[in-house]
């Protein structure tokens, strides 16, 4: 891997743009095509590319497996937590309308939070699956 200078440099240049694109897809998701799932896959793709070029150990120094294992339920917690907050405010589970002063704002905020939860879980699950495959037979 030491000799792949072009690969290494290009990867380093691309990585921040991948994350930026993931965030664009994430925040574009409520009015256009995109959303948490797609953004999560792109964000995970960043880690996977890093692992492919710089090796698994380098990637796991950035995102260790223990962190991945925490992030997977964290995303679900964000998702379900929004639902719980809606319940506490007197609406049904996941009724975003009650989250803010008026329902339009509530719906907007609710879906953004939900998509954040999806992003976290999808990205970490993708990385988790990749780690599991790469670590096989070690």
């Amino acid at each position: 891997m030491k000799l792949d200078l072009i690969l290494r440099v290009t990867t380093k240049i691309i990585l921040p743009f991948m994350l930026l694109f993931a965030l664009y897809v994430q925040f574009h998701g409520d009015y256009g095509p995109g959303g948490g799932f797609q953004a999560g896959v792109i964000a995970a793709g960043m880690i996977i590319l890093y692992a492919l070029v710089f090796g698994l150990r380098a990637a796991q120094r950035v995102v260790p497996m223990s962190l991945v294992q925490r992030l997977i339920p964290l995303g679900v917690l964000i998702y379900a937590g929004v639902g719980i907050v809606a319940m506490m405010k007197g609406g049904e589970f996941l009724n975003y309308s009650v989250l803010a002063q008026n329902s339009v704002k509530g719906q907007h905020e609710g879906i953004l939070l939900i998509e954040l939860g999806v992003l976290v879980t999808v990205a970490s699950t993708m990385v988790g699956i990749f780690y599991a495959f790469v670590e096989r037979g070690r």
Partner: protein
Amino acid sequence: MASVSGENAVTVALTLTEQLPGLQIVVPLMGAIVCAFLRRGNLAWLVATLVTWSLPVISFLLLLEVQESGPISYKMGGWAPPWGIEYRVDQLNAFVLLLVSSVSAVAVPFARKSVAVEIDSDKHCWFYALYLLCLTGLLGMTITGDAFNIFVFMEVSSLAAYILIALGQERLALLSSYQYLIMGTIGATFYVIGIGFLYSLTGTLNLVDMTGRMEMLGLTDAVSPSMLAALAFIFVGISLKLALFPLHAWLPGAYAHAPSFVTVFLAATATKVAVYLLIRFLFSVFPTTAVFSELPMSTILLVLSVAAMFGASIVAIFQDNMKRMLAYSSVAQIGYMTLGIALANQAGLTGGIVHLFNHAITKAALFIAVGAVFYRIHSVRVEDWAGLGRKMPITMAVFALAGLSLIGTPGTAGFITKWNLSLGALEHGYWWLVILIMLSSLLAVVYVGRVIEIVWFRKPVATIDEARSPPMTMMVPLFVFAVAIIWFGLETSMSAGYAADAARFLLGGGGS
């Protein structure tokens, strides 16, 4: 879309009682998340236990409310049905909710010691998270009134179940899990294809709305091709899930190789929920007269049920592995449930529905007994059990009692089922069917009797030297199920009473 819901926005805050249908799903879901964060197995078990114990309370309150004031509707996410997902609790699924939640609540203490020896310690928290997710899925399938939402919860529970089974100690567990995955996925796919046909026919996914629209289309007495296709796909899809003979091939392996607690849990709940779905679709969604008068649905179900009762029982007689024997017995017992559906009259359907409950407590007791023995002697081969009655008398006594319930001896829960089924058969004038029910019970006498003979009347073998009474966390569930088997065999106003209510509700007036 946001502006539409703006007009529907909640102005009056919902009370806790009105939130109950949502909580039935949200509580186990949150429990699963909490377990996934934990790192200590005992703590995860505690969370899982407390969460599971809270569920029967919720479902019992729901049942009381349904009996008081009719079906309950809950708008998930605040979107009004039929556009949004509706949680709808009526006489039928209130009973099934109570069944699933209470059987799990009784069984869950058993998990503590059993899981501790059968699963690697670093996986305990994930194990309990998956168990709660599976429970969430099963309860969700039962409570939701939306055809597609049923599919989503079916996948939640199935995916969790595949992993739970694959955690078994033997390598065959992985293969069994994979077989179940293939069969289960085919079943779920068929179900979705059927829903697709129904959607093209009615333009809705809400079950109650679906029924209304089929009535509007004049499909109550006649059968249209797309309805027939929908019925065929949904029937086969759900039959795969409930392991109706001859689609049961995944079940014995899955039950035999799964960890003990998973076998107890799945045997007592998973197939029951699938049977509930079949009942829901045949009696409450599809027009009952069209399905049972115009189509040979009764005959098909009757033949398959009887085939299950005999075929699977005969195979069970020749099994050496206790878990596999009981798994085949489950296939046979599912035959009794579908037999009740096939009879499609008040007594028969009552028998089918009450057997969901009676079989759940019976099989849970049997599998817990097997799990307790496995905990002590690490074998489920029947010849290793010889003379075990002297070392583990209480466990084996409960096993014998549950075995009697499996046979259908008067005074046990199993008898109530067979009594109602026989009444239903006689109402049709099918006296030969009553004889078949008796004969199939005799097969159960053979496979249960064989075990009882080996356990109580043979000389102890070396394998059971270490055996002694199981720990308290196993003894208590065993004892509760034993009491329940006798209680619900004598006092039937709870189990058979609610089942009769549900049957009356399904046969008169349908799902609306």
